């Protein structure tokens, strides 16, 4: 996998087998057989999300040009670049906010979970529902239901 003109930064390092992050270029991403994926791709310009869903934070950034740039709110869209078979364990990114994902190429199976409707409010307010039981056993013991959606180019969740 060594590339001409430089090292292959995506290569597996047997001396650091549990390293989570690597530094790699797009060129190396396309060439490596390793299952790497990247969120380090801030997308500028227009948003694929409907403007009707502008959050208070986005509205503030648009309205006040001097909005603190130290807060990562100016960039709210990322390109997710992933090799086939990349898997992400169940997790919550930002409680209380909406997330959208639009597929440009390839397929992505997205699993969504819902708490039992009769205790939904208590469950979503309980931090324990987002810890180990979510990560390791998908909250089955808490009665959560999972549904899988296969997204393809043209899909937006």
């Amino acid at each position, binding site marked *: *996998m060594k590339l001409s003109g430089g090292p292959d*930064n*995506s*290569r*597996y390092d*047997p001396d650091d*087998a*549990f*390293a*989570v*992050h*690597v*530094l*790699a*270029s*797009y*060129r190396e*991403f*396309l060439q*490596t*057989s*390793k*299952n*790497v*994926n*990247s969120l*380090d*791709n801030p*997308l500028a310009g227009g948003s*694929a999300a*409907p403007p*009707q*869903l502008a959050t208070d934070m986005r509205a503030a950034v648009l309205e006040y040009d001097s909005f603190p740039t130290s807060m990562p709110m100016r960039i709210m869209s990322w*390109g997710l*670049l992933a090799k086939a078979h*990349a898997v992400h364990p169940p997790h919550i990114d930002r409680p209380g906010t*909406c997330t959208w994902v*639009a*597929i*440009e*190429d*390839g397929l992505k199976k997205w699993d*969504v979970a*819902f708490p039992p409707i009769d205790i939904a409010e208590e469950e979503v307010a309980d931090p324990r529902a987002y810890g180990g039981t979510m990560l390791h056993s998908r909250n*089955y013991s808490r009665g959560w*239901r999972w*549904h899988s*959606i*296969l*997204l393809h*180019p*043209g*899909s*937006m*969740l």
Partner: protein
Amino acid sequence: MSTLIWYSQNSQIASDLQELAKHADDVRQRNGLPTGPPPGWYDGVTEPMILEPPTSFLDGPDPPPICSLAYADFFTMTSKDIQDLFRKFPVIVVHGRPSRLHCDMSSLEEWGDPDALRVMHGMSQPVSNVY
């Protein structure tokens, strides 16, 4: 050492998948749905197969709060209509959105310098095990 880790991780994944399949079968059985592997699946299958989506998924007796809409309809809704929709359906799947990019160099060049180093998650070994 690394080979042992590779086998251990794959063994754990296989165990997790078997547990997930058993759970899915239990839920399917309780809801009167077919159980077991899909038609065309047999031990040793390694090639991708096409699964027909269930046509009654969103119309069943206990439908999930997922709404499906056409892209053109969704993006022309008013803010109030969208927010009302989200109160009933926390998950909305839009279809028919125009897409343009591909996972190739020319598309990635639109994102930035193809030789710039970026942080990537990479806790796996090369498929070829050649490094």
